[in-house]
């Protein structure tokens, strides 16, 4: 068939029980759990963990932006709610096990998401996007200004009192990796279940044409708020993981506007309305600065001036890539890769 068909987001509804998809999922899970054997602490702690968590945050925004068509530039606020909720639940309700705490933190973020999603019922486009900045600044202020949220710590930072599941300590890089990858795997499954369900279809209908969606009887307002809630649920859990699975400690400024922009870029780069694409976007966001920084160790770049010039060059390259992607590849890296794979396998294409 044509390439258009290959980029179709839907698959036939009935699938064989042990199809290629199932095998891929099992293989992916095995690979994911084998990673700590192959990667050292540096790779785990400073590349793989942040990449996975940012990918998860990307899924959170993508559910809202890619599937429902509502663009938020305040995503980091909901991450901070998840992080601060997790901290306070662990601290003040020590009897709760970590998985329960993470879910509760996600739900608290979801409630905040629904409240700050209310303007979506009246406004659209970047009026809405700009108003999501309200959440961004409000929560950054809230968590900085009321030290109760950080248990009156002098530096207003939060750090996880304990990170364990059933007495298994998760403080080491490997432990944190397993926490992150297991949570993310479950949430990926959840994300797929949602987007393949009736709710997911209704979101996409609202995204493509909200008047028509309303006319055929979709509860548009309800679905938009649900999308804000679910998106924030994902972001909240991603925020908790970012604070405790990656940074170790965090303050409200770890979830500033730059972080919100990064998540937005992950969605643009990875591709809207994809799930795995977010991890491509996250890889890009996490790796590009490190690569450019390392490039200066390998190649003599002194002709560019000093190290500062190189750092500014990173900004320029980064911005340029965003623009070029928007122009050349509006569906993001995931569609680029799909086409790349298709081009490399002409036989598969003609037989499929």
């Amino acid at each position, binding site marked *: 068939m044509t390439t258009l068909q290959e980029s179709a987001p839907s698959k036939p509804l009935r699938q064989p029980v042990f199809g290629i998809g199932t095998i891929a999922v099992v293989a992916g899970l095995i690979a994911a759990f084998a990673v700590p054997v192959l990667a050292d602490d540096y790779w785990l702690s400073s590349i793989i963990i942040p990449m996975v968590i940012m990918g998860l945050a990307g899924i959170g925004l993508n559910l809202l932006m890619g599937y429902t068509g509502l663009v938020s530039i305040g995503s980091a606020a909901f991450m901070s709610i998840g992080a601060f909720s997790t901290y306070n639940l662990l601290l003040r309700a020590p009897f709760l096990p970590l998985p329960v705490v993470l879910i509760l933190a996600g739900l608290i973020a979801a409630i905040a998401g629904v409240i700050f999603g209310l303007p979506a019922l009246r*406004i659209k486009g*970047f*009026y809405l996007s700009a108003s999501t*900045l*309200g959440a961004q600044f409000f929560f950054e202020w809230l968590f900085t200004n009321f030290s109760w949220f950080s248990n009156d710590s002098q530096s207003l930072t939060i750090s996880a009192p304990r990170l364990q599941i059933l007495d298994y300590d998760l403080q080491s890089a490997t432990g944190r990796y397993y926490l992150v990858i297991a949570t993310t795997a479950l949430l990926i499954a959840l994300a797929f279940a949602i987007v393949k369900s009736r709710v997911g279809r209704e979101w996409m209908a609202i995204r493509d044409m909200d008047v028509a969606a309303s006319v055929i009887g979709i509860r548009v307002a309800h679905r938009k708020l649900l999308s804000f809630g679910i998106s924030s649920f994902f972001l909240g859990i991603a925020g908790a993981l970012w604070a405790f699975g990656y940074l170790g400690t965090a303050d409200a400024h770890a979830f500033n506007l730059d972080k919100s922009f990064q998540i937005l870029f992950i969605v643009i780069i990875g591709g809207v309305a994809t799930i795995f694409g977010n991890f491509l976007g996250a890889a890009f966001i996490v790796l590009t600065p490190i690569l450019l920084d390392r490039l200066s160790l390998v190649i003599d770049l002194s002709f560019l001036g000093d190290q500062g010039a190189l750092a*500014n060059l990173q900004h*320029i390259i980064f911005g340029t890539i965003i623009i070029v992607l*928007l*122009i050349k590849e509006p569906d993001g890296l995931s569609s680029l890769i799909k086409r790349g794979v298709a081009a490399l396998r002409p036989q598969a294409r003609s037989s499929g």
Partner: protein
Amino acid sequence: MSYFFETLVSGLFAGVMYSLVAIGFVLIYKASGVFNFAQGAMLLFSALTFVTLTEKGMPFALAFIVTSLVMVVIAILIEWLVLRPLRNRDPLTLFMATLGLSYVIEGFAQLLMGMDVHMLDLGIPDVAVQVGGIYVSQFDIIASLIALTLVATLAIAFNKTRMGISLRAVAADTLAAQSIGIRLPVIWRIVWSVAGIVALVAGLVWGSRQGVQYSLSLVTLKALPVLIIGGFSSIPGAIAGGLLVGATEALADIYVGPLVNGSVSTWFAYILAVGFLLIRPAGLFGDREIERV
């Protein structure tokens, strides 16, 4: 009570400063339907170029002209490299492209002109004068006059010149304007150039206050709630929104701040703006669109 008025007045003056930034956004939005996030970066770039030139010994007026020309060149480049390839794409894509653009412009600004903090002295005395029992800054008065002049100039340009009329035609109905022979790329280049010069003026006023440095680009964030309240497409709206944001923010800081042990001005304007949107979704002066199906 005089304290209340003093706060109110200083808030209103701060509001004028916000409006000055917001006008640049409105111009571009009106002509190309783009919410230009890179306006802050353009502000930084223009102010940096200006001080770099004056520090090299160039006289004020000449530096202003040269910087304006640089901004025109940048506008032409943006139209050619970013806007044209993205024509007919949805407004959010364009918005995100301007986010990327802001990285590029900030990067170039600092790559070319360094990261130092520069002092900028426009020769405006910044002392307090007493007017009717209230202390008012002379600098604020002059900055407001500059803003007024700018708005008046733009209003005349829009209403009296051929170019301005074409621009309003584009703003009203892009397709119809094209069909009567108005060339969109030309309009865009001109509007982005004008927005660049507005950015220069705003950058100079802000820069002379806080020094010309990276954080100039952050004033964008102050202009956003102004735009939400005033409407993205209305210059009078930008002025009114600016005054409203400036005044309420200052008063909230004095009267609400102490209740929540801190300053509220980082978010107050946004919450105000969101509340405002719920009542008037198109802003103070914006047009409400009728959805056609």
